Structures are given as structure tokens and as C-alpha cells.
């Protein structure tokens, strides 16, 4: 190994191979005539689609090229190519190396400390042994075997933001071809070259209200990039927007708060529709066969003062079914009409094909922040089933046959009213998981009540728009990991998490029957999905505020999780 050379003769010896290497590399660069990387991204679309088979078998380690076949894989294996691993949102890995029998031998492999923001909320993506993570507005490519940085793209954090965006949370990237896509805290969509981190384009996509921000990971569908915003508690007007993957040009935008003349506008007097919330701050899911996007919307704004927004407040706290080519609304299902308790409906709408009461159904399964688990027919939005999972729940007397909650009439006022679940919800954005082999749906839940107060206020840019507040009732607050069995429509098991923290760790499952999650005591845990019994844990020393994923390199399976200000990777020795 040589550093800077001082001797002339020595320098000549070293230069010969070096110069030829330089010329060789430059020549190849010229041959390639290097078009923008996003143009390369398009070449993938011309390949035949094989959604069922293991795709990209000939992909070499370190060679980043994500094709439509990779995005359409039914279950992730070595690569994890989108926020939830695949379009269904089931966050289920087909890797089989780590099993209930050997899980106790898992050990830490590496820690990556991006040094920007805490807590990290990113789910890493892995392609061909290269991991992509974000921390605030920065993106990194890592050697997924060692955690060492291959490149780092910096982008300054924004000042003057409010609420969630002001904390610069970011949940990761989307990938297509040789490009990655990420949102910035101030709602810009960036396209970066996945091989260098170089910026290809930067499109600001939420203007006119500086309370807009972004914290999600983009979803790549066909040749478009789907993004939403944060700011639903801060008086922005929610939307989902699609941008051309190659050019960054906007293709369509669906406003979640109807404008003048549109259905549902009657809930939004005067210009309140411009501040009605309903933001799309988590990635949705996608069914390629039905050509339908499923995307949850957040709470209405102002959060607690419903007197100014009469009616159901469409399309807040809803699941939207949208045509990805046009943004046309196919159907919607509203979980919490006229929500008064901050019950966003952005929890992953998991695409499940399974037997329901004796008949094969194309379903959406989702555990909602309002305390109920729902099963819907995803071909038409028809309500099939609901089950209360929040042990303490008093805002609804039940769910009627059409899936509409029967209100208990608890209206926040200046004196305050105690409501369960609390404003943080009976579950939240942390991932759920569906195991298609056992038909178990795993998710984290949280038991708490809060006193909600309301007072009519005016929207003001630069300030949140809760119209007063909610305070969690002391002595409540317990987390559970739940396994809901879709075959008998009841819980297989529910395990309370021991610990003094309120965890925000999502759940994933694997083909060998394992589940993995961050608990309420700063541990990352691998457990047996059949019983919930923990098999292994590692004290990451920080609260897990993110959802796990799994990947493989040369057949070796890893679990990765962001915790606090670090990303951890684990594997068998």
C-alpha cells in the first residue's frame, strides 16, 4: 500500500498501471455516453414481467439495477426494494436461514451512525448487497455486509418548519433502475443516482403553505413516483401526487380535501378546505392485477374542534383506492367520519389474498388508530369485518353493518373529555405484518386514554392547527404485540411488552415463522410467531422508532433496524 509518493523513480513505477487504468476507465465512460441515470431507469420497463418467480437471479453483488420485475416480486428475498419490501405491504421475508431453532445464535454485525437526526424512522432498502438509508435530508449507500459508507449525499435541513417536519424525520427511499428517490423535510422530491448519490433533479411539490413538510418514503409504481406530505395537524390541504420517474414532471395530483363544487366540499366552509388536513404521510400499497393504489389519509384539521367542519370531513381518516395512471378515485372507505381524536388512517393497508368465511377474497387488512382492526373487499371497498383490539375504547359504541362507527358522542370542549384510545392512537404508523403461510396478522398496539380539549381558533401559517390539545391520562399506556388469526378471526395471542418506554417499533415476519420488532425496553427482539415467545434480543440502547427489514448477501440472512440515531444489522455468526 502506498500513500503520496515522493521519489521520482518510484512514482514512475506506480504511474504506469495507474495511467492505463485511468485511460481504460475514461474510455469506457465515453463509450457508455452516460445519459442521465433516470433515463436508464426506463430500460427496466421493457423487460417481461415475471411477478411470481425469483427475479434478477443473475444480478451481481454490488450491481444496482432495479427493474419492474423486482418491484413486482410477491415476497422479498435477498433484496428489499421498497418501504414495506413489496407492494402488498405485508412486510414478510421469504428468507429461511434464520429459524426458530437457530435464532438464539444471532449476533450484531455492524452499527451505522449517520450523525444527523434522532430518532431515525427509516426502513433501509437493500439491492445487491448495497443498503440505502436516509437520515433527515441526507442519503447514504452502505456496504450492507459491513455498514461502511459507499457514498453520502448531503442536503441541508430546513428551518422554519412546524411539527413533525421540524423534527426532520425521514422514512427512506424508493428505487427504480439506477435511481433512488427521497422526500425532504420541506417536501421536495429528489432523484439521486444510486451509484454515486449525485443529484439528478429536485422538485418542490408542496407550495402555498409553509406548514407542508414530508417525512415518508416515496412509492415507485410503474414509471411514476408517488409522494404525499406531512402537516395534517398544521392546517395543510392533503394530496397524493405522482411524478414521472425520468423527468420529475407531475403527472397527477389527488386532493384529499374536496375543493368548491366537488363531492364532500360541504364539510369545509369558506376556505377551510385549504387547511383541512387529510395528509398522506405514509407509503400506500398497490395491487398490480387490479391496477389500484391503496392509500390512507390522516386526521382532519383542526384536530379537536369539529364544530367548524360539519359532516363526515371527506376524505380524512379514509382509505383511498386510486387509479395509478390517472389519480382517479375508484372508491373510499372512511374509518372515522368526523374524527375528533387525531385518528389518522395511514397505517399500512395490507393487501391480502385469503379465505374469509369460506370464500377466497381479495382483501385489505389494517389495524386502525381508532382501535379497530378492519377487513375490506379491495375490489370495491365493501366492508367485511371489524374487530375491536383496543382493550379500553369508549369513543364508539360499535361498528354498524356497513362499517361505520356508532359514535358515543364524546365531543372535546373547553373542560375536556376523556377518550380512549388516546391521541397517539391504539396503533400508529409503525409497520404491521402478514404471514401468508400461517394467515396471522401481526401488529403493535398501545393502550392509553387522553383528555381532549377543544377551542375554536383560526389557522395561522407557522403554527400547528390542533385547535387546542390532548393530554394522555396518567397511569395508562401499555404496549402489546398482537397476532390476529385470519382463519378464525380472533387473536392467536396478545403479549404485553415489558419496559418503561413507549416503543414505536414496527413488526415484520419471515417464512420460517419468526417475527421481529423493537420492544418497550430498548431491545430489538426476534420471537416465535406461533406463540409470541421471544427467542433472542439485543439491547440497542435506544428506543426503536422504526420498522425492521431483512436481506441476504450470498445466502447469509440479515435483519436490519433503525434505533435511536443508529442503524443496526444482525445475522448468524
Amino acid at each position: 500500500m502506498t500513500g503520496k509518493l515522493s521519489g521520482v523513480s518510484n512514482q514512475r513505477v506506480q504511474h504506469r498501471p495507474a495511467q492505463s487504468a485511468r485511460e481504460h476507465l475514461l474510455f469506457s465512460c465515453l463509450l457508455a455516453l452516460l445519459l442521465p441515470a433516470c433515463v436508464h431507469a426506463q430500460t427496466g420497463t421493457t423487460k417481461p414481467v415475471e411477478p411470481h418467480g425469483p427475479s434478477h437471479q443473475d444480478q451481481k453483488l454490488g450491481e444496482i439495477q432495479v427493474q419492474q420485475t423486482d418491484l413486482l416480486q410477491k415476497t422479498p428475498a435477498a433484496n428489499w426494494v421498497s418501504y414495506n419490501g413489496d407492494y402488498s405491504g405485508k412486510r414478510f421475508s421469504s428468507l429461511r436461514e434464520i429459524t426458530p431453532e437457530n435464532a438464539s445464535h444471532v449476533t450484531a454485525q455492524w452499527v451505522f451512525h449517520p450523525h444527523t437526526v434522532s430518532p431515525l424512522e427509516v426502513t433501509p432498502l437493500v439491492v445487491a448487497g448495497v443498503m440505502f438509508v436516509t437520515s433527515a435530508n441526507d442519503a447514504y449507500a452502505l456496504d450492507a455486509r459491513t455498514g461502511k459508507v459507499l457514498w453520502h449525499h448531503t442536503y441541508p435541513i430546513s428551518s422554519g418548519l412546524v411539527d413533525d417536519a421540524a423534527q426532520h424525520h425521514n422514512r427512506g427511499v424508493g428505487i427504480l433502475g439506477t435511481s433512488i428517490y427521497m422526500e425532504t423535510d420541506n417536501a421536495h422530491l429528489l432523484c439521486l443516482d444510486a451509484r454515486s448519490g449525485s443529484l439528478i433533479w429536485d422538485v418542490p411539490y408542496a407550495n402555498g403553505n409553509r406548514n407542508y413538510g414530508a417525512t415518508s418514503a416515496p412509492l415507485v409504481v410503474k414509471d411514476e413516483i408517488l409522494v404525499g406530505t406531512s402537516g395534517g395537524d398544521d392546517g395543510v390541504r392533503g394530496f397524493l401526487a405522482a411524478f414521472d420517474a425520468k423527468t420529475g414532471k407531475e403527472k397527477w395530483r389527488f386532493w384529499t380535501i374536496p375543493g368548491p363544487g366537488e363531492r364532500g366540499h360541504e364539510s369545509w366552509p369558506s376556505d377551510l378546505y385549504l387547511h383541512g388536513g387529510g395528509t398522506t404521510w405514509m407509503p400506500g400499497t398497490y395491487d398490480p392485477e387490479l391496477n389500484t393504489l391503496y392509500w390512507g389519509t390522516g386526521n382532519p384539521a383542526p384536530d379537536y374542534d369539529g364544530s367548524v367542519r360539519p359532516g363526515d370531513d371527506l376524505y380524512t381518516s379514509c382509505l383511498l383506492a386510486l387509479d395509478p395512471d390517472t389519480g382517479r378515485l375508484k372508491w373510499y372507505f372512511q374509518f372515522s367520519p368526523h374524527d375528533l381524536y387525531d385518528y389518522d388512517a395511514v397505517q399500512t393497508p395490507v393487501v391480502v389474498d385469503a379465505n374469509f368465511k369460506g370464500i377466497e377474497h381479495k382483501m385489505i387488512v389494517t389495524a386502525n388508530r381508532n382501535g379497530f382492526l378492519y377487513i375490506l373487499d379491495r375490489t370495491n371497498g365493501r366492508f367485511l369485518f371489524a374487530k375491536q383490539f383496543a382493550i379500553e375504547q369508549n369513543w364508539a359504541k360499535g361498528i354498524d353493518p356497513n362499517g361505520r362507527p356508532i359514535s358515543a358522542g364524546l365531543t372535546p370542549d373547553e373542560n375536556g373529555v376523556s377518550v380512549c384510545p388516546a391521541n397517539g392512537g391504539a396503533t400508529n404508523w409503525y409497520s404491521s405484518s402478514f404471514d401468508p403461510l400461517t394467515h396471522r396478522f401481526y401488529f403493535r398496539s398501545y393502550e392509553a386514554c387522553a383528555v381532549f380539549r377543544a377551542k375554536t381558533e383560526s389557522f395561522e401559517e407557522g403554527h400547528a392547527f390542533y385547535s387546542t390539545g390532548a393530554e394522555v391520562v396518567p397511569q395508562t399506556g401499555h404496549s402489546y404485540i398482537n397476532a390476529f388469526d385470519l382463519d378464525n378471526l380472533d387473536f392467536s395471542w396478545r403479549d404485553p411488552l415489558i419496559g418503561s418506554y413507549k416503543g414505536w417499533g414496527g413488526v415484520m415476519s419471515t417464512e420460517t415463522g419468526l417475527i421481529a420488532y423493537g420492544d418497550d425496553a430498548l431491545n430489538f427482539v426476534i420471537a416465535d410467531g406461533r406463540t409470541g415467545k421471544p427467542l433472542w434480543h439485543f439491547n440497542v440502547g435506544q428506543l426503536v422508532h422504526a420498522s425492521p427489514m431483512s436481506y441476504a448477501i450470498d445466502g447469509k440472512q440479515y435483519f436490519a433496524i433503525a434505533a435511536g440515531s443508529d442503524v443496526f444489522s444482525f445475522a448468524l455468526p
Partner: protein
Amino acid sequence: MLRWRSAFPTTLCSTLILGACPLPSTAQSNQGAQRFVEYCAACHGADARGGDKGPSLLSPVSVAASDDDLIRVIHDGTSQGMPPFAQIGNTNIAAVIHYLRVLQGTAAGSTGSESSIPGNPAAGQDLFFGKARCFTCHMMQGQGGFIAGGLTNYGRNRTPQAVLHAILSPDDPLIHSSRVVNVTTSAGQRITGVLRNEDAFGIDVQTEDGRFHMLPMSDVSDIQHTDHSLMPSDYATRLTSKQLNDIVSFLIVSARDSNKSTRQGN
């Protein structure tokens, strides 16, 4: 082929091309650049824009800090974890600060005004994407290659002198992650590419096709580190002074425009 910097001293070249621009402290700046790479770049990045372990030194706070403040921080370290560097001596500390001021665009003699732009940016753009072939390796505003660093924002906070120096003497200083290496694997495969990461236990090399070769040391039989990056070192003979100034102007002016377009909005 003679390498440019062995034919002419950098100071002479800069003065010739930029005309009567005085650079009284270029020697100090070069010393500062070397010391900066040696002591600071591992944490703060070779361009001081921040790295894995240290914050950007181009922030308003760092720019506003007085030289005395910076001397104190470098000399004593910080409670946030930066170690003290008193051992490098006052001369080196002063040189590092001088170089940092160049990177910050606040060094004496450096200005960001239109009048200080030495050439024609439009002609520079034609050269960048044409005769000079910069685009084959560098990405600029979405167009170009990936094997070298993106230049969209490169000219921001950089002086024309610093940009010119980087073009004419690309390996002074040589950035660790740009170094060309020749690796032979245990299986006998030879890999020539750019060093992206290396420690005692493994090496990450990126080849011209964009592929990352991520090798544990147990799979490596030999590593030859060259003393250069991929960037050609003969631009002084390939391009005229005017053409070089045009490219410098293109990099600085377009970064300024990029600054305007990407940071607007909310």
C-alpha cells in the same frame, strides 16, 4: 506524459490564467489544504461540507466564527466530541483556518460577485458537455456520469481560484474516496476502480460500470493504491486559459442558480 503540476507550479498557473488576481497566501492555502485533508476531512469531509462524524464547516455559524474562535476549537477540541489538535502546532492551525476560509468563500481576495467570474459560463457549459468531456464522469444538473462526484452544487462557496486549482491539479489534495486502486482477489480476479471505503478488514471499490465490489480482506490477495484519482491531470494542455476560465465560470454561476432554484418554495 508529463503531469501538469510537475511542469508548472500551481501558483504560477493560477496567476497566469486569472490575470492580475493577487494570491499572496497560496502557499499557505496549499499547506492548509494538505493539513485539512490530513486532520479534518475524515470527519468534516474533504470539502468541509460535513461527513459521517462531523458537521459542515460551511454553516452560517462556522462562517461567522472568528479566527480566534476557530483556533480555540481546533486547539482544545469541543465537548461534542471533537478531539484537540494542539499537537499539530500553531502554524498548521493557521494554515487550516486559512484554507477553511477559502472553502467558505470568505478568504481575503475571494469574492462571489459577478465581476469576479473570469469567463463565459455559456461557453463553459458547451465545453463541459462537449470538448472537455467533464460530463462523462461528473453529473451536472441531472446530466452526466456517476463515477466522479456530482458538480451541481460544487461551485457554491468556492472561489474561481479554488475551482481552477481543482481542475488543473485534481489530485492536490487527493481525496481518499477518489483514489484509483488495483485489487487482486484471492481467486485471481483483478479489479481496477475507485476506492470508496477501506479499513483493515475490507475494501469497497467501484468499477467503471458502477458496480460496487465489496470485499472482505480475506478475499483479497493484493491492493495497489495509486496516487491519483480518475480525473485527467492534463487539462492545462488540453484547454486554453480562456476555456478553463469558461468552465470555472459555468461551475460557479450554475451552482448559484441551482441554489436559487432548489431552496425556494416552502
